[in-house]
């Protein structure tokens, strides 16, 4: 399968957007997962609901909310642009931000589940051996939750590759800047004679998704062995 230059551009852009989206969402996802798994605070149910909202909300709505808050004429977006020169709209970083928000709950969920699977008895053991809370987090809890962190990251990466609604609403469909694979497929279908291109890109998307699943499985198996489960 020989890809045209535009197709290669879309592919590379998709990978970059998904990679940055996962990296952006990971640290807050770990913090939120820790708070939900181990924290006891009022309003936990509400926080949990808000975190999971992007999972059930139409992605177009996520894109719309981003547009009205971070657009250059919106208060927050305008301030960011005027003060730091940071602009998300019409930029691939905006696409990454939109993907990060939509896939955030996937990461939180996977990390939280694996945090909750860590035997609390091990933390008691670490405590009697002289480890304080932060020490236990880094020497014990996070390493043992690593399979979940990796599984969550790979799932989020794969989901980011397929994000359409939030991206097109927030940052539009600009070739080479925000036209990721799904947007390129959509564009190809809209243009006369684009059927072959759409088919190639669709096949490519399926192949990527499949590779992602295999990779996720292999990685989690390997990590589980590493952490002795």
């Amino acid at each position: 399968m020989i890809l045209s230059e535009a197709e290669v551009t879309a592919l590379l852009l998709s990978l970059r957007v998904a990679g940055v989206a996962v990296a952006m969402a990971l640290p807050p996802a770990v913090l939120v997962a820790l708070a939900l798994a181990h924290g006891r605070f009022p309003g936990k149910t509400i926080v949990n609901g808000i975190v999971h909202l992007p999972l059930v909300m139409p992605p177009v709505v996520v894109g719309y909310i981003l547009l009205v808050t971070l657009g250059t004429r919106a208060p927050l977006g305008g301030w960011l642009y005027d003060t730091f020169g940071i602009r998300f709209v019409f930029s691939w970083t905006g696409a990454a931000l939109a993907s990060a928000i939509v896939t955030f709950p996937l990461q939180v969920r996977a990390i939280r589940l694996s945090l909750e699977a860590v035997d609390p008895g091990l933390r008691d053991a670490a405590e009697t051996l002289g480890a304080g809370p932060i020490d236990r987090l880094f020497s014990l809890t996070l390493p043992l939750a690593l399979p979940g962190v990796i599984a969550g990251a790979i799932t989020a990466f794969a989901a980011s590759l397929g994000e359409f609604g939030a991206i097109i609403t927030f940052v539009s469909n600009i070739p080479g800047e925000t036209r990721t694979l799904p947007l390129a497929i959509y564009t190809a279908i809209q243009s006369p004679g684009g059927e072959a291109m759409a088919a190639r890109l669709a096949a490519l998307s399926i192949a990527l998704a499949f590779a992602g699943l295999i990779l996720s499985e292999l990685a989690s198996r390997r990590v589980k062995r590493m952490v002795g489960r």
Partner: protein
Amino acid sequence: MTVRVTMRHRLGSFLLDLSFALDHPGITALFGPSGAGKSTVINAVAGLVRPHRGRIEINGATVFDSEAKVYIPPRRRNVGYVFQDARLFPHLSVRRNLLYGWRRAARRASDKDIRDLVALLGLESLLDRRPVSLSGGERQRVAIGRALLKSPDILLLDEPLAGLDRKRRDEILPYLARLRDRYGIPMLYVSHDIDEVARLADQVQIIDNGRIVASGPVSEVFTRLDLFPLTGRFEAGTVIDARIVAHDDGYGLTRLHFDGGTLTVPRVDAETGALVRVRVRAQDIVIALSRPDAISANNVLAATITDLRVDPETYADVQLSCGGARLVARITRQSLDRLALEVGKKVFAVIKSVTIIR
């Protein structure tokens, strides 16, 4: 080394209300039936449980006081804890498990001490393995080493052998005995297995239904007839600490001396002068009114009856005092009446068999 515990703690409808002090070196067993509150007590000493009321002192330092609102967290109490289920860290090798507490200890054992302990626990060949590939007994040995490498003032063990089968248990007991003899570290050992306690412990605190019902040296507490419902007469019998005075290589025998006389037992593999602990089962003692001469048993001891406990059914337990030592014999009620046995009567205890337990 002293540990003083006074605590009141409610768990649902169960009330734990007790007070005890450990000021003996060696191994003190906290013995009692399941659900008696033993684990809660040891967890309170470790700091994993905060009693509702009370005060806990380790080596003169108050680590918990509900009145003065003192609570030192487990990581700042200088105790080593061995859990029933080992709780090794699955993502770390045996070596890194062993060194986990050591790295965080205020005073670190030297490389030589580490190597000695690893050798004593027989862990040399396991260092690069992962916990998941270890047997239950191996895991528990690593857990003991890990707790000790923290250089604690006291080692707390919560039924460390309960999850293991008889064979693995017998494999670990000698390691614990060696640790006690070699390092002299005081241990508080929770167990509901009288056999373990008889083999390991020097002192015992018997806990039942949230209270301490008896305490003292093992040999004394386990011969108290009134405690039999708790100690279970058959498994225990009597424990006697004796010293090796001579070996008879011709007959393959060893002569032991204790407070109440001399015992002749099959050859013991230890130096003359060494201390051993022997166990005499209650059903292995025959009571005679006069010293029997023509008899195959080697051990006949002069004794005085100090207590009697008669079952409603067939049997009776007879507590005998031989010098400073105490024995318990189990005979039928019929024999009791036939020989007209009563407290204060002088008799002879014919011991059919003796087991060396340490």
